[in-house]
């Protein structure tokens, strides 16, 4: 009897023990650690400023994590010894790795972007500084001035965004700023290039004046419009040099009365106005318009470049009351009063005055 019970018990427990052994072998530990690590990776990645490329990697990491969680739910619905967490662990690991890759990508790209934008910031700032130094006096229309100001404003906003590591906004602002800045820069460069096509004439006039001054042992005055300089030569030797101010629309030759342009050419002083005879301290009246100016004026009228009713203008002087730091005359050349004293003393009626765009070539100034 006892033997039969023992056999019966053995028969009953063998499947139970085998089942328990199977469950022990088949049972898997839930993927808590793997998912937790993946989640922490995602959280770290989320804190970083992500570039578009890093964002794509990050979103992939998020999707792998979400898939792992969903799969875990599905596995939990199964009987415990039939659950398989291998795929969940795989997805969690992938998510963790992708999150790390996203951080590395973001850091590397942010570092690159920071450097690129720093260079761009410097480049744009340099361009503005270059403009200020080279094209400072260039006459711009109101709308062009507004565009220039807008460009500078956008650059300022871009620098603010850059300092706050908002590189996407920085790019936007720099791009917009660059459009305005380049537009005005290109316009100014073209204007100056065209203007300097007259350089051979300028060179010829100025050299002839110096040669005449030496030959006839006289004074002569050379006005360099671009450099804003007035040079007094005596017997062919530079004796005195000072700053000048011109008309607002100084670039190019004077075309008609009221165009606020300073004429270019070879002139003579026709009259000396003492203090009291002019509101501009002292003045040296020039023989504008000369024969060349008159001829050109008629031609321009015929070509329709200037209005039929326009006047050629007159009363172009070298006078005092300068030193205002801007171009403000109606086409005259303004000097500071102390400089005017020296010039007034040296010059007399008949002294040659040569007004040129520049004494230096385009290449010397801009290349």
């Amino acid at each position, binding site marked *: 009897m006892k033997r039969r019970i023992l056999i019966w018990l053995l028969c009953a427990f063998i499947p139970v023990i085998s089942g328990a052994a199977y469950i022990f072998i088949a049972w898997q530990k839930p993927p808590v650690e793997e998912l937790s690590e993946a989640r922490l990776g995602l959280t770290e990645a989320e804190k970083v400023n992500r570039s578009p490329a890093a964002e794509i990697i990050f979103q992939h990491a998020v999707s792998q994590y979400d898939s792992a*969680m969903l799969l875990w739910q599905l596995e939990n619905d199964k009987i415990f010894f039939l659950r398989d967490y291998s795929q969940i662990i795989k997805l969690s690991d992938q998510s963790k790795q992708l999150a790390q890759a996203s951080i590395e990508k973001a850091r590397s790209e942010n570092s690159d972007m920071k450097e690129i934008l720093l260079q761009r910031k410097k480049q744009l700032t340099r361009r503005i500084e270059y403009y200020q130094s080279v094209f400072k006096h260039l006459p711009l229309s109101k709308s062009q001035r507004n565009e220039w100001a807008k460009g*500078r404003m956008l650059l300022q*906003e871009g*620098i603010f965004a850059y300092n706050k590591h908002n590189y996407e906004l920085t790019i936007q602002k720099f791009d917009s700023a660059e459009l305005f800045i380049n537009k005005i820069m290109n316009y100014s460069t073209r204007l100056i290039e065209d203007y300097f096509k007259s350089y051979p004439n300028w060179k010829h006039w100025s050299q002839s004046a110096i040669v005449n001054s030496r030959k006839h042992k006289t004074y002569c005055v050379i006005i360099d419009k671009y450099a804003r300089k007035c040079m007094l030569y005596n017997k062919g030797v530079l004796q005195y040099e000072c700053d000048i101010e011109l008309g607002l629309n100084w670039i190019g030759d004077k075309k008609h009365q009221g165009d606020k342009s300073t004429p270019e050419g070879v002139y003579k002083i026709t009259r000396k106005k003492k203090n009291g005879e002019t509101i501009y301290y002292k003045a040296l009246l020039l023989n504008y318009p000369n024969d060349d100016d008159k001829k050109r004026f008629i031609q321009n009228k015929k070509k329709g470049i200037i209005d039929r009713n326009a006047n050629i203008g007159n009363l172009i002087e070298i006078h005092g*009351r300068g030193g205002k730091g801007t171009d403000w005359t109606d086409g005259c050349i303004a000097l500071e009063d102390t400089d005017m004293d020296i010039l007034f003393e040296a010059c007399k009626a008949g002294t040659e005055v040569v007004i040129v765009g520049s004494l230096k070539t385009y290449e010397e100034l801009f290349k």
Partner: protein
Amino acid sequence: MNTNQMNKKMKIKFLSGLAALGLAAVLFTSCAKLPQAEIDTANAAIEEAKISGAEMYAKENFIALKDSMKSVMENIEFENSKFFKSFSIAITDLEGVTQFAQEVKMETATRKEELKAEIEATIAEVKSLLEINNMLILDAPKGKEGTSALVAIKGELAAIETSIQEASTMMESEDYIATLDKAKAAKEKASAINAELLDVIAKYKKNKRV
């Protein structure tokens, strides 16, 4: 009772015991249900915080909030994987997440109000600077000299005015961080123009001896 009958009775008792154990296990495991209502409440609170702008104005805490929710969901799933489940800790955690979400939402609202006030103050400062600058222009030398000297500055002032108008429009769309940056840039520019303007006027007046 003979031996066969006794064996049969024992067999029945043993099987009944096994069945009872199985039933108890089923009962235990099916007693604890997922705290779905609490999960939904927490998710709704997180969504509200997000809609309020927490992602932008309370970024760090919003990231921590999302991490907390994910962590709770992992704990829930861990409990779900157990033979004997208990979601009582998870429920407490979910309540904590809901509370945290409300705090993040409040922090967002506070930050937005702070930024709004800062923008308004900056815009007011810029407007005041613009007014001063415009007054200085009126006070500046009349005639052709003054007009020429100030023509460039007028362009700059126009750009600042446009920028401030844009900032006001941006503020209406509740993009406070970008708006503040724009207003600050305008302020910096207006201050620089102010200094430049004072310099031009001083230079002009110094040289005016008529």
